[in-house]
């Protein structure tokens, strides 16, 4: 469960004895499943035997969509409360809700954009201020990178590419046991060519966001 934030290079033949559990959460339509699949494919090409678990069915009608990517010395495809090393959050409230998957050393990458759930949109419940959510998150996890991924995606030319922005940010934190290039290779070979340019731009926008120190609410202790 220990994470290295140093620049890891992939071992094509021999995997180090690592365990990495990534929890992705968002709202139906945000592209969490594609993001988890890209991570899984990249891990597979890097010689791992990843497990990617998905939510299908009823939950997708405007509800919460979660997926998990685990790799290394783990057989279980799902992540228990308190056992996610990385939380990739596509929506602010859902990221906060998924804190129950995190522990004190987890790295959280959070899209600060809010999608109000229906009870909030109709005045029956309140959406806590995003700044407050971020502040609380920062106090409880090992690292928090937070920025408006929707905004970055729009600037990169595709409002729908939030998933690519977040993948770029994740890749730039270097907590993955494979490289940015491995992920880009999957994007180039496995995703719809029609959206490739926009996706690559969005990915790079995420890399840039992770390199902007202002976006780090809390730096992981071992970050350098």
């Amino acid at each position: 469960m220990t994470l290295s934030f140093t620049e890891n290079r992939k071992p094509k033949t021999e995997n180090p004895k690592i365990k990495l559990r990534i929890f992705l959460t968002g709202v139906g339509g945000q592209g969490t499943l594609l993001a988890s699949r890209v991570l899984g494919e990249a891990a597979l090409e890097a010689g791992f035997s990843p497990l990617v678990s998905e939510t299908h069915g009823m939950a997708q009608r405007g509800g919460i969509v979660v997926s998990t990517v685990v790799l290394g010395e783990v057989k279980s495809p799902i992540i228990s409360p308190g056992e996610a090393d990385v939380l990739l959050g596509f929506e602010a409230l859902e990221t906060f809700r998924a804190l129950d998957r995190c522990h004190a050393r987890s790295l959280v990458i959070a899209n600060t954009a809010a999608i109000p759930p229906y009870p909030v949109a109709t005045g029956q419940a309140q959406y806590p201020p995003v700044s407050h959510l971020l502040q609380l998150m920062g106090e409880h996890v090992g690292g928090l990178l937070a920025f408006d991924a929707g905004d970055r995606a729009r600037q990169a030319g595709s409002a729908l590419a939030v998933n690519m922005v977040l993948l770029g940010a994740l890749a730039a934190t270097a907590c993955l046991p494979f490289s940015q290039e491995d992920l880009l290779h999957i994007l180039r070979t496995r995703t719809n060519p029609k959206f490739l340019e926009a996706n690559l731009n969005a990915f790079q926008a995420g890399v840039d966001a992770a390199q902007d120190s202002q976006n780090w609410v809390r730096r992981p202790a071992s970050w350098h």
Partner: protein
Amino acid sequence: MSELLTGQPGERRLFLGNEAIVRGALEAGVALVTTYPGTPASEIGDRCYEISRQSDLYFEYSVNEKVALEVAAGAAASGWRSLCSMKHVGLNVAADTLMTLAYVGVKAGMVIVSADDPSLFSSQNEQDNRFYAKMAGLPMLEPASPQEAKEMARAAFALSEELQLPVLLRTTTRVNHTRGAVTLGELAPHPGPGFFSKEPFQKVMVPAVARQAHARLLEAQARAAALSETSAFNKICGKGTWGIATSGVSSNYVEDAVAELGLQDRVQVLKLGFTHPLPVNLILKFLAPLERVLVVEELEPYLEEGLRAIAQAQGLTLPVQGKGQALFSRLYEYHPALVRRVTARYFALTDKAAEPLEPAQILGQPLPDRPPNLCPGCPHRAMYYSVKIALKDLGVEGVFPTDIGCYTLGLLPPLSMADFLICMGSSINTAAGISKATDQKVVAFIGDSTFFHSGLPGLVNAVHQGHDFLLVILDNGTTAMTGHQPHPGVTLTPPGYPCEHVPLKRVVQALGVEKLWVVNPFKYQEALAATKEAVNATGVRVLIAEAPCPLHVHRLQGRKSRARFRVTDKCQDCRHCLDYFGCPAMQLSDKLEGGRMLIDTDLCSGCAFCVQWCEAIRPVKARGK
């Protein structure tokens, strides 16, 4: 070309458990696949549909699971390897067939996939279908991972042929919907035309034949038990005097728990993949040296009871425990930390558990929920609205038996249009019972796909018995909830979909329904007037609300309405739209202060329904284009 048809033997691919099952079946030379879509099994059918367009595979979305199982049984009796997949409750629909198909047997291999749903992610119950294998007397395999799903699907065909019995491949959601590395094997060629060899005194289940067939089934079960003893899917690993018995997805949690608790030298693990019949001798060999055994299995104590019975018969008195207080629950899906915690407790060890953060506690208040909702522009919401208003205008309170599909989300406020639901097709028959027992006005709802699945007999019965209720058939032209699969009534089909269209309206008329209305639910005044007439009439009445699922239209035709609507200054803030309609695009401008209504133009689908009953809502003038 489907990625399940490409790839060299030995290559590793990241497949969903459901895709791995399809690949395994293709490697076994499956020639016919049938299904009725249902989560978590749906992708098996969807991939096979795609493959059937690109190869000799015959595939059909059958009208229900019983039909699907019988089509597959006919093919298997004729020498074609066949596969039939369904969700767990689908096997209830097909259970009549299953029980006697076990007597009839098969010629070519036949595999029945039952996808169980612990935690009820998208089901009406969490029944444990392993008991079907026991009740029918059929062999059963339970994969733990996508790789095993592929291997077992492939092996199941050979096993089926060896025993001349269909084989149950029982999965759970977490196996169906996990992607994992799968090593490909060789694809098998299509077998060519089959042939049905007549053996009426073996295959026609009249009592005299069935008596013999039952005896044959018991003999086959004995042979199956022998195969279970030596199956590579059943194994004992580790050493020590403690034991853990497990199967299916739980075996992954056990493997992680054993490693994380450092129990490799203290515990023996019996991992079972061939779980009916149980391998009695292997289990005795496992139990003999042990002091105590923990059984780790989701849902019912199937293995636990099996192991205990085997131990008892041999006079073994060691504790064999699984379900109970301080142990495992019969409820819901398990997860790795849970299995580790209970394992540690059972063997009196300490578990160095991570301490999960508690979001609500950190925030100091509960987080707002995010319930699923019918999409903006959904025709079901429009029809529900007309029924609500019709009943309100008539001063009548309705009772709403409902059915299974997206429209079941009508349960949630503000629609609140669902009062009673059991299973597929239950809306019509429970409506009959409620209307008989009460003086209440009964309006039942059923979707088009569900109506073809199991609504027909109920409607015939209602006509014949002279029941008194209104049935609204919400006809969105597809099986939307499970991913837009076609059914006999569809007009909007995927390119090249070769099937005959069976018009819903003519079917309803042919069943003897005389009071029938067909409306477009997006034409408010028409829909409202027809609904009022239909509510006021007596006897069996049917109202068909015909409008395609907008997601389906968009997917097939790439068409999306460009119209958008907004709330003007005329809005009196009456909140009728929130209280009666509840489209996700309708929101309050200042959520904290409870401000004015607005329509989120990013979410608005342009269906132009609300504009017909609210004067304050007007079109947004198109800019450019």
